């Protein structure tokens, strides 16, 4: 598993702001808290500032609208509505808190226990189902009939009844957290199971718990008002919100105003609780805008780019311009030529700078480098599938007569799947868990080849045979989770072949697989390439896979190509220190040879895009770095063979790959 560079541009999804910060950042959340807390405080201090008591009747001013003396008007007995509403607020809200408190106090320990032990899980699943199936309102009414209108007790009972629903919500999360390795690590640390639940599982559930707590608080207020409305609550003349709504409804034709403050305060309070829950949850429920944003390809932007490119090329000499145009025109059919590609984060740094590649028909190009070097981003760009927030800033991706960097969505759709297909590192991700393999293959074949269902079924079976699946009928009828990882990758490859593509972009196609399965998949890809004359761009960090499959290699480091050449030249006679280091770090390189005492370890990490050095980007990690490396380094032809190298000191470092095996020492070579 490698971390995609694209995560750099979406820090919000990697690292969400803390709960407190999320509240402080949102004015709406502050308003909600102000409303809820202010109402309770105002209610508790009511005797100090209200001049009419909640029970004081003044029969000379019954059912009046708002006035200076009675800001919210009076009720049918001439009592001040403001006074009654505010007085009722604190008891209502404090008693409503009992519901979520009881619900959580019961559900959390039970959930943690059930997530820990299988037997408890099966018992508690049944219990929660039984509780869920109980008619809550009927039980509450029966309970009131038995114990009377003791509201705290009734609301506690209501909280207990919510156990079923809360358990269902919390259990899934607790169970998946329990399967996390850090919980097992805690067990190995000797932490007692219950302590592990409290220290490691509960804190990771806190967000859900808090959100559900706030939601239940709103439900509790609604429940209380409902009960008071049907007369089951604190008895008159005690003011209650539900009771006041009930009397307002009796006089709705004589004085409709009475409903406004009573209904309003109830609605506003419940809305405040719900809005707060929504903000606390941080909009988790909103799906990431991946698809919709990907579709966005502002043609104006593209036009801008083309005209800018034209403007830039205009001052160049006519000879240059003509040679450039002949190069552009010479891109053959089924040939991919990437020229000076620059991909950047909108309003941020560039991730890939000036990458040029060429993949002739039937050839396999390996794109290698560590995570965060821009390999995947480059390969996604060839499909017009850059993540939202990323865009091609300049350069071209020529596919035959078409420039994929500026092509519109319609043109891309004619290419994607039909001419250029994609297979990913995680095959199960390219398969929808809801549908059978057959359904998915048939849908893709019908869309890409425009054939009838029966014919598509025949093609699907043939494709699966082509990718070396023996038991075709069984696999066709299976769902993605029913097949192994290697089988899933075969299916993903057959899916990629559905449109008879001539170029395959393979992003770490075997990284998630065992060596034995990897060998099978590599063998399969090799056969398909030979049979169909397909070309492949293979993104990988495994140099052994490169040696197995590739004709040419491009080594990328920090968004740049640092070395290109034939697979034999690059792997056997590396000229760039980075390539040398990668080879010396590979335990496979030394297999069967002299006993390796240590592997080369490249000190430090790939620098983040914003922090690339201005000269050679490898300077901080290179053991051969010297003063002259601080200035920009161009790609120059290899000393041996075809291809290019980006290193100022390549003559000085030639043949010194063994030195990488010595313990780390940076910049020691003066």
């Amino acid at each position, binding site marked *: *598993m*490698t*971390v995609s560079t694209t995560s750099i541009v979406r820090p919000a999804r*990697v*690292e969400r702001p803390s709960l407190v910060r999320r509240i402080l950042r949102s004015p709406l959340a502050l308003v909600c808290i102000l409303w809820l807390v202010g109402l309770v405080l105002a209610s508790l201090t009511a005797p100090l500032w209200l001049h009419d008591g909640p029970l004081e009747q003044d029969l000379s001013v019954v059912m009046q609208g708002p006035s200076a003396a009675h800001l919210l008007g009076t009720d049918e007995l001439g009592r001040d509505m403001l006074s009654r509403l505010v007085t009722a607020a604190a008891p209502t809200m404090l008693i409503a808190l009992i519901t979520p408190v009881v619900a959580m106090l019961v559900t959390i320990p039970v959930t943690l226990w059930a997530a820990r032990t299988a037997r408890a899980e099966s018992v508690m699943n049944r219990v929660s189902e039984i509780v869920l199936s109980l008619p809550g309102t009927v039980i509450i009414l029966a309970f009131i009939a038995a114990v009377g209108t003791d509201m705290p007790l009734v609301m506690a009972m209501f909280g207990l009844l919510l156990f079923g629903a809360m358990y269902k919500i919390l259990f899934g999360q607790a169970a998946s957290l329990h399967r*996390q*390795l*850090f919980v*097992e*690590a*805690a*067990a*190995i*640390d*000797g*932490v*007692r199971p219950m302590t592990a639940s409290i*220290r*490691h599982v509960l*804190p*990771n559930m806190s967000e859900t718990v808090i959100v559900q707590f706030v939601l239940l608080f709103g439900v509790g207020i609604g429940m209380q008002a409902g009960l008071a409305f049907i007369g089951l609550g604190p008895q008159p003349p005690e003011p209650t919100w539900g009771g006041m709504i009930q009397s307002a409804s009796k006089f709705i034709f004589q004085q409709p105003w009475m409903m406004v403050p009573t209904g309003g305060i109830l609605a506003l309070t419940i809305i405040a609780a719900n809005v707060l829950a929504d903000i606390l949850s941080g909009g988790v429920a909103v799906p990431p805008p991946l698809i919709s944003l990907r579709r966005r390809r502002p043609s104006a932007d593209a036009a801008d780019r083309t005209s800018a490119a034209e403007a830039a090329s205009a001052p160049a000499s006519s000879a240059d311009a003509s040679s450039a145009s002949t190069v552009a025109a010479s891109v053959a059919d089924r040939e991919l030529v990437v020229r000076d590609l620059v991909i950047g984060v909108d309003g941020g740094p560039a991730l890939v700078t000036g990458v040029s590649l060429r993949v002739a028909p039937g050839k396999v190009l390996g794109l290698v480098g*560590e*995570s965060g070097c821009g390999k995947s981003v480059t390969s996604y760009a060839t499909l017009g599938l850059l993540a939202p927030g990323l865009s091609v800033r300049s350069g071209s991706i020529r596919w035959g007569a078409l420039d994929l960097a500026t092509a519109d969505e319609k043109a891309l759709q004619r290419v994607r799947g039909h001419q250029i297909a994609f297979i990913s590192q995680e095959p199960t991700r390219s398969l929808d868990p809801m549908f059978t393999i057959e359904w998915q293959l048939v849908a893709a074949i019908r869309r890409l080849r425009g054939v009838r269902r029966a014919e598509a079924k025949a093609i699907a079976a043939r494709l699966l045979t082509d990718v070396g699946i023996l038991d075709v009928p069984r696999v066709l009828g299976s769902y993605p989770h029913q097949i*192994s*990882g290697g089988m899933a990758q075969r299916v993903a490859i057959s899916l990629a072949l559905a449109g008879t593509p001539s170029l395959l972009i393979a992003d770490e196609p075997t990284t998630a697989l*065992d*060596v*034995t*399965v*990897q*060998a099978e998949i*590599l*063998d399969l890809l090799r056969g398909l390439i030979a049979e169909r004359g397909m070309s492949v761009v293979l993104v990988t*960090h*495994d*140099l*052994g*896979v*490169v*040696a*197995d499959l590739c004709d040419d290699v491009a080594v990328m480091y920090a968004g740049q190509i640092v070395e290109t050449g034939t*697979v034999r030249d690059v*792997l*056997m006679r590396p000229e760039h220190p980075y390539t040398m*280091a990668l*080879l010396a*770090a*590979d*335990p*496979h*390189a*030394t*297999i069967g040879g002299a006993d*390796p005492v*240590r*592997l*080369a*370890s*490249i000190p430090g*990490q790939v620098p983040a895009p914003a922090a690339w050095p201005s000269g050679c980007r490898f300077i901080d990690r290179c053991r051969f770095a010297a003063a002259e490396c601080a200035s920009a380094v161009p790609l120059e032809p290899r000393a041996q063979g075809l291809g290019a190298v980006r290193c100022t000191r390549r003559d000085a470092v030639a043949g010194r790959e063994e030195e990488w095996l010595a313990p780390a020492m940076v910049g020691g070579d003066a």
Partner: protein
Amino acid sequence: MSTSDTTPLLEVEGLVVRYGKRLAPAVDDVSFTIARGQTVGLIGESGSGKTTIGRAILGLVPVDSGRIVFDGRDITRAGAAERRALRGDLRAVFQDPYSSLNPRSPIGRTVAEPLRVAGLARSAREGRVRDVLASVGLPAEAAQRYPREFSGGQRQRIAIARALVTDPRLVVCDEAVSALDLSTQAQVLNLLADPRAGADLGYLFIAHDMAVVEFLAQHVVVLYRGRVVEQGATADVIRAPRDPYTRALMAASPVPDPDEQARRRDTWRALRAEAKATA
């Protein structure tokens, strides 16, 4: 300590683990030993039961039959309390550096957890955490930071620091490097190879790739479908593998040398054809 130096560090005898009564056992009659300070590689494809063996030793899955003896003590069915009595002699590093660290807990707290359980004073804990973080090449201030602030390779080094913090006798490494980039993988492998030289520390190194095992282990156990098909000194097994499955496993591991890789590919194809013919 009552045990003499000749007692193996870990003895696994006739281990059987089943995940369901009707299913074939995930681990079937597996036996091997780890001597003091030795590194043993456990190798096989997915589904070969190698991870299950590691989990059984760590007490994370129940054992159906057989014995696991650690340092002269039978821990086959040891409960949480007995495992605590091992006092951090038996530790683990997992494959996925992303889910093996609690995202809500600062690194220092995670690394110090076994020390806290052992009842060490706070100041002693902090000193030990600082030392162990330094030994895996992380600065002392890393203790205050959260897992999300570290890269995959750094996280795996933190996981190793957590394993080493108790000065263990045996560390079970379950695919500890297979999720890492080549360069970070090399860093971690060097790190694992390092303390071994001096300390009395053994490793059970679980992997699917022979090259990684060859680099670290003196002894290798090859598993296929829950059974041991071959075991012996790493150099012997690599020089002259006896079982066809071991040969296939070695041939499947690709080398960054196009000519050598072409030879391996041919070997692998021949072995596969042979296996299909016999099947």
